[in-house]
């Protein structure tokens, strides 16, 4: 009798994780302090904001980088996510605003950042008169200090971890959207980002505050070139902080779409605070980047709040796409729903690590998680990890996760009705993602996203590979 072979260890992620993480490339602490001063004075910020940045920098320096062994980090290829704190003011002249991949046809307000610098800002006059604000964050801090001071850092995003703290200290691209009490904004507010063309790192900070009984749809769209930005092997790094604050009975629909350059490593740190009876929907569409890791926390601390977190992604090549989410219920009678749907081709890989956390005060919570991964190629893979941590008994919680190919039954059904295989596959993939894409409150943008996803996945892909 032969000794048993040890289990196969192909593509074992534990040994991948043993790869050396990206080396720490922090500037020296004194240099970082100077850098914060340079950024803050370059953006002509008030003193209190510079002090706020310095406080965040001190926290960052007191917080170690993630070791890669934490549950939220151990599936992230460590060599592909830079551990560096480098930021620089963009050059002063960028010329006219270039056309943006996601440029809207219709909007209530628009702000466009190119390489970190605001180049275009427009606000419909009636909404401006109604008190709506959309401005670069530094400018808003000068012009409306009381408002920015009230909301900036009001969620725990700047305290998330070292990246979160650095995000608060080093941002050059800031966006502030403020909706006064009772204002219902009828069209979407757009914030466009063009990635720095020289492939330098970008630290972006988004702050959306909706006062009680207001409603707003905010769409953030970021684009880089369709291929690589750099040829020296250094991944352009993008860190995006998102703070969303919905006061009592406010309604925020937030959508973020990214098509960063193919060599970009993108990290999102997003926290949404949902007030009493407030509603929030967070749609995330992930197309570009080599590595896209989105950490999104929903904080439901007040009674009656509701939050939806709906993400889609389309992976190809060796892309690595992660959604690290938390639905944190500490308030009575609130509800939340996570839905992540993604399609993976080639050797792309997805991770969904989602936690529903219910504190003892979160009685009568309804919280759900669904993670669905459609694999179109043999090399693709997915790790859906839906987690429940529940300390209240009167709750409704469930989760479901699935991984699999395009259903042969569905393809057969469509073909039996005369639809060619290529179109049948397109219909199935489109239908699979539609639930999330169709929620984005702008038809033109939805069409652009559909086209990009089909191109990304090379649809029709490997039809009927049974």
């Amino acid at each position: 009798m032969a000794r048993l072979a040890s289990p196969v260890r192909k593509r074992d992620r534990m040994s991948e994780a043993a790869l050396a993480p990206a080396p720490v490339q922090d500037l020296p602490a004194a240099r970082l302090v100077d850098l914060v001063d340079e950024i803050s004075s370059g953006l002509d910020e008030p003193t209190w904001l510079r002090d706020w940045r310095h406080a965040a920098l001190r926290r960052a320096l007191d917080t170690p980088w993630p070791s890669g062994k934490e549950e939220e980090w151990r599936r992230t290829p460590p060599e592909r996510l830079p551990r560096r704190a480098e930021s620089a003011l963009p050059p002063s002249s960028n010329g006219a605003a270039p056309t943006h991949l996601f440029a809207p046809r219709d909007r209530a307000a628009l702000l466009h950042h190119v390489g970190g610098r605001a180049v275009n800002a427009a606000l419909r006059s009636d909404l401006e008169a109604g008190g709506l604000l959309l401005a670069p964050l530094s400018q808003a801090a000068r012009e409306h200090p009381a408002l920015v001071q009230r909301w900036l850092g009001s969620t725990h995003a700047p305290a998330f971890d070292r990246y979160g703290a650095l995000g608060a200290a080093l941002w050059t691209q800031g966006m502030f959207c403020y909706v006064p009490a009772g204002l219902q904004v009828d069209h979407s507010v757009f914030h466009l980002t063009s990635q720095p063309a020289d492939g330098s790192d970008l630290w972006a900070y988004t702050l959306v505050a909706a006062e009680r009984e207001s409603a707003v749809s905010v769409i953030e769209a970021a684009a880089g070139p369709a291929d690589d930005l750099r040829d020296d092997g250094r991944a352009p790094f993008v860190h995006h902080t998102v703070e969303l604050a919905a006061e009592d009975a406010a309604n925020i629909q937030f959508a973020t779409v990214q098509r960063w350059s193919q060599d970009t490593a993108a990290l999102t740190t997003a926290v949404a605070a949902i007030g009493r009876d407030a509603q929030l929907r967070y749609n995330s569409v992930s197309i570009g980047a080599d590595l896209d890791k989105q950490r999104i926390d929903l904080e439901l601390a007040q009674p009656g709040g509701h939050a939806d977190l709906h993400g889609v992604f389309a992976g190809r090549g060796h892309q690595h796409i992660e959604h690290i989410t938390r639905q944190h219920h500490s308030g009575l009678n609130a509800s939340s729903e996570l839905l992540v749907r993604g399609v993976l081709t080639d050797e792309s890989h997805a991770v969904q690590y989602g936690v529903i956390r219910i504190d003892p005060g979160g009685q009568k919570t309804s919280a759900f998680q669904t993670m669905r991964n459609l694999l179109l190629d043999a090399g693709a893979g997915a790790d859906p990890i839906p987690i429940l941590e529940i300390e209240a008994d009167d709750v409704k919680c469930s989760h479901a996760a699935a991984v699999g190919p395009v259903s042969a039954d569905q393809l057969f059904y469509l073909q039996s009705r005369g639809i060619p295989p290529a179109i049948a596959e397109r219909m199935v993939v489109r239908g699979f993602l539609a639930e999330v894409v169709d929620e984005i409150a702008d038809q033109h943008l939805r069409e652009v996203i559909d086209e990009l996803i089909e191109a990304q996945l090379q649809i029709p892909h490997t039809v009927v590979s049974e």
Partner: protein
Amino acid sequence: MTTTTTPVTPRSEYEFGFHDDVEALVKLPKGLSADIVNTISDIKEEPDWMRRLRLKALDHFNSRPMPHWGGELGDIDFNDIHYYVRATDRDESSWDDVPGYIKDTYDKLGIPEAEKQGLLAGVGAQYDSEVVYHNIREDLEEKGVLFLGTDQALREHPDLVREYFTTIIPPNDNKFAALNTAVWSGGSFIYVPPGVEVDIPLQAYFRINSEDMGQFERTLIIADEGASVHYVEGCTAPIYSSDSLHSAVVEIICKPGSNVRYTTIQNWSNNVYNLVTKRAVAQRDAVMTWVDGNLGSKLTMKYPAVYLMEPGAHGEVLSIASAGQGQHQDAGAKIVHAAPNTTSVITSKSLSMDGGRSTYRGLLKVYEGAEHCRSNVRCDALMLDEHSRSDTYPTMEIDEKQVDIGHEATVSKVGDEQLFYLMARGLSEGEATKMIVNGFVEPIIKSLPLEYAVEMNRLIELQMDGAIG
């Protein structure tokens, strides 16, 4: 909405909390060192390879950090534990020869009765560190079935033991498997020859009797081609004032076409740390089933695993956990699909009551190339009051496209409508709750052997008596 939030009352007295004043024949001093490991090996007169393996494992144990996940392990003092205690100096071949004081303990557990009724094919009873009594029906012995204490197997079938020992769970697998490998004592060894079907369950009972005692049994089961066997293990420990440690290792090899079912019901007293590593490999067309019941202990961390190594293998884990006051049941399952056309099912049911915490922690892994795998994971949790906690940590790592993988979990409380319906028909709230809980765990209970199903239902009711008015 306060129908189930009755005041917390102390849990009823631990049913198996008797403890015999047994004078141990051999009781090594507390603490863990190479000397202790060597002494254990000396007492057992083991072959040299086993001694070296133990010492190597001790190094692994010392060099590995404590797990930082799972339950609270900080209170374990590894230097305050007796790693070896022996109450009798040989395995007895007949029940009549077993010393009276040990018999008394087992009589209270009801073992010989069960055997006399012919329900069980063989009984091995582990009293602290050594197996004291083993019997196997003669017809099975004639077919070549081996059912021995692992120490005895090492003496009588050293080549067979050496061939399989630590092949499924290597000494450096994890900190507690390393500890077990260093100081293991007792456990069951089962070998079922090709084609032999053991038609009634083989059983073993484990008890911890001494204070500050660690129990480190090592079980090894080999089902040869086409064989089938059902092994049942129950655990109880008397209550002692200081904490005890139970850290077992179970290795199972299911050769092609074999069928192994391993049923555990643990009802350790509430001061036992139960940190167990259980793993099986299933070869072509083999079927491996773990039935895992966790009712007792202070903290259990146990995730029975099935590695599906060849096409057609099937793995199944049925898990039930009930956490009451002061308890944390961190249990689950691990299934690895390493070959095409393999299938698996995980069904987990957990109850949290009286401030207890139940955790499902699982891994489902599909390697690239393991095409046409199917797996279904289902975890349900029932919370009986607002002081308790329920967690679900299911991890899935899927590296293959042509698979059908699904996972679902729910957490809920006892439904008010269900309670109302039953109470409208004249049941008290407590009776109605018990009935609903029985229905909730029924899919697991019905897969247990009859006498265990009865015991299990009784234990759950016993636990609920403290929690439900």
